[in-house]
């Protein structure tokens, strides 16, 4: 025996030989504590958590060093969802008896599952909030909090009880019943739940605990019988066909695929959405960046870019204008040297809208002096090319002539030879359009008759055969006027 005061160890007697303390009282209290612990243990074994808490609390009150009782008390608190109370008992227990490792093990296990612990604590927080809501007559809000709390900790007895009360306060006894039954499943003799059950189903004489026990036993028997029946049926099926395994396998495959689809696909989508979000954020950051560290911001860059572009355009226009003026001056020099055709070709495409009056005057001088003669030269040249069978050059030269021509008296002729050239190049449709233009716009042209003949030949499908003939006739001057 160990003296509780001086820790002296002695074999017998009611008085400590070391300090003289009467230990009868100590022995008595220790026995009472142990008896209470036994009762608590019995209650805990029968899943009467409330009863167990009652006995075990008394046990540790009588003998605070009864660490077994304290550890069990913590365990029962934990089973009831009161995790902080459980922790408190285990912390105290591990401090009072350093040799006993049970409490330390419990604490270690909880520390390893910190996330679960946090969830349980959140459940308590929600439960406390629900009480506040209930006091403010907001039963609906309270019920939401309680449902969340029991989803975090499905063994939270008090939360179930409060949820039942909440529903009963709303007059919804049907909704309250599952909560009450859940409490009685977790804590079979919970007095609050028993009271609620009587309220919900008035006149029920059978105690729910007994009811639940009977039900459980029946269920176990039933399950066993059902399992036997199923096994015999299975064996029978297996012998004859053996299909159920295949069906189960296929079912398993489908379920796995469904689970994969449900789990993997959303994750992939989430990843993509995250990427898009990141990119958007980066872009927004760039756009909203105000160049605080001395560097240039996005908006400033955009505006600077626009300014530079307009400046480049300005320079381009200036260069184009200078080129035009240069060409006009060159053409003027060519005119002075008697090279009318070259001078005319140099200025024929110049747009004079942005030129100064002085430049326009020079342009007009060159134009008036060169275009007519150049057109005549080009016409002769083009006709020569045609007659020589050099259709490509003929086409280019006659088109240039058409651009410069000022005297409409021979425009019909130019068009006619363009038609012939196109015919020579095999461009029948273009040839037809030229002949038609000669006939419609220049019916009095010297080549109007030839244009008509050529058109007729092309339409009758003999144009290609007569082309060389026409060419030779023209070269001989038979039809040319």
């Amino acid at each position, binding site marked *: 025996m160990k003296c509780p005061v001086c820790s002296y160890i002695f074999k017998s007697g009611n008085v400590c030989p070391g300090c003289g303390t009467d230990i009868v009282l100590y022995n008595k209290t220790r026995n009472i504590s142990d008896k209470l612990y036994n009762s608590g243990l019995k209650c805990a074994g029968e899943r009467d958590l409330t009863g167990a808490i009652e006995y075990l609390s008394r046990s540790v009150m009588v003998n605070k060093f009864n660490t077994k009782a304290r550890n069990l008390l913590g365990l029962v608190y934990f089973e009831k969802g009161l995790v902080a109370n459980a922790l408190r008992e285990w912390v105290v227990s591990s401090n009072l008896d350093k040799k006993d490792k049970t409490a330390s093990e419990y604490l270690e296990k909880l520390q390893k599952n910190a996330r679960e612990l946090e969830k349980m604590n959140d459940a308590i927080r929600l439960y406390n909030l629900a009480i506040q809501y209930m006091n403010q007559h907001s039963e609906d809000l309270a019920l939401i909090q309680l449902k969340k709390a029991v989803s975090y900790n499905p063994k939270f007895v008090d939360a179930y009880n409060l949820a039942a009360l909440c529903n009963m306060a709303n007059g919804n006894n049907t909704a309250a019943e599952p909560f009450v039954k859940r409490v009685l499943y977790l804590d079979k003799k919970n007095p*609050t739940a028993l009271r609620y059950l009587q309220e919900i189903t008035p006149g029920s004489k059978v105690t729910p605990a007994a009811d639940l026990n009977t039900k459980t036993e029946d269920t176990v028997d039933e399950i066993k019988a059902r399992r036997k029946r199923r096994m015999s049926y299975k064996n029978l099926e297996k012998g004859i066909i053996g299909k159920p395994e295949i069906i189960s396998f296929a079912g398993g495959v489908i379920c796995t695929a469904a689970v994969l689809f449900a789990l993997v696909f959303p994750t992939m989508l989430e990843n993509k959405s995250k990427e898009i979000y990141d990119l958007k954020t980066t872009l927004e950051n760039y756009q909203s960046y105000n160049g605080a560290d001395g560097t240039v911001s996005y908006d400033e860059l955009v505006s600077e870019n626009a300014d530079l572009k307009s400046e480049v355009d300005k320079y381009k226009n200036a260069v184009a204008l200078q080129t035009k003026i240069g060409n006009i001056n060159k053409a003027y020099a060519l005119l002075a040297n008697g090279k009318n055709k070259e001078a005319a070709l140099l200025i024929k495409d110049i747009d004079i809208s942005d030129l100064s009056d002085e430049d326009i005057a020079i342009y007009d001088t060159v134009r008036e002096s060169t275009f007519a003669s150049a057109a005549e030269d080009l016409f002769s040249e083009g006709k020569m090319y045609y007659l020589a069978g050099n259709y490509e050059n003929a086409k280019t030269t006659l088109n240039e002539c058409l651009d410069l021509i000022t005297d409409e008296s021979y425009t019909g002729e130019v068009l006619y030879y363009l038609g012939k050239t196109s015919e020579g190049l095999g461009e029948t449709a273009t040839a037809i359009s030229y002949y038609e233009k000669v006939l419609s716009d220049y019916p009095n042209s010297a080549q109007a008759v030839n244009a008509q003949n050529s058109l007729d030949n092309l339409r009758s499908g003999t144009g290609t055969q007569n082309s060389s003939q026409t060419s030779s006739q023209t070269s001989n001057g038979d039809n040319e006027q």
Partner: protein
Amino acid sequence: MFSFKDELKKYEPAMLIEDMEDSIYSEDFRDMFELMQYIANNKSKPRTSRDKE
């Protein structure tokens, strides 16, 4: 039929983990044996003049 108000009064906020430490420090851990010893010790001591007052 019970009163919901009275029933609600029976529900008290549960202890949170963060409140556990305070709860341990504030709790009186004297057990029955210690209390009895305390009473017995006080009884055996002679009463002082201050006690008489």
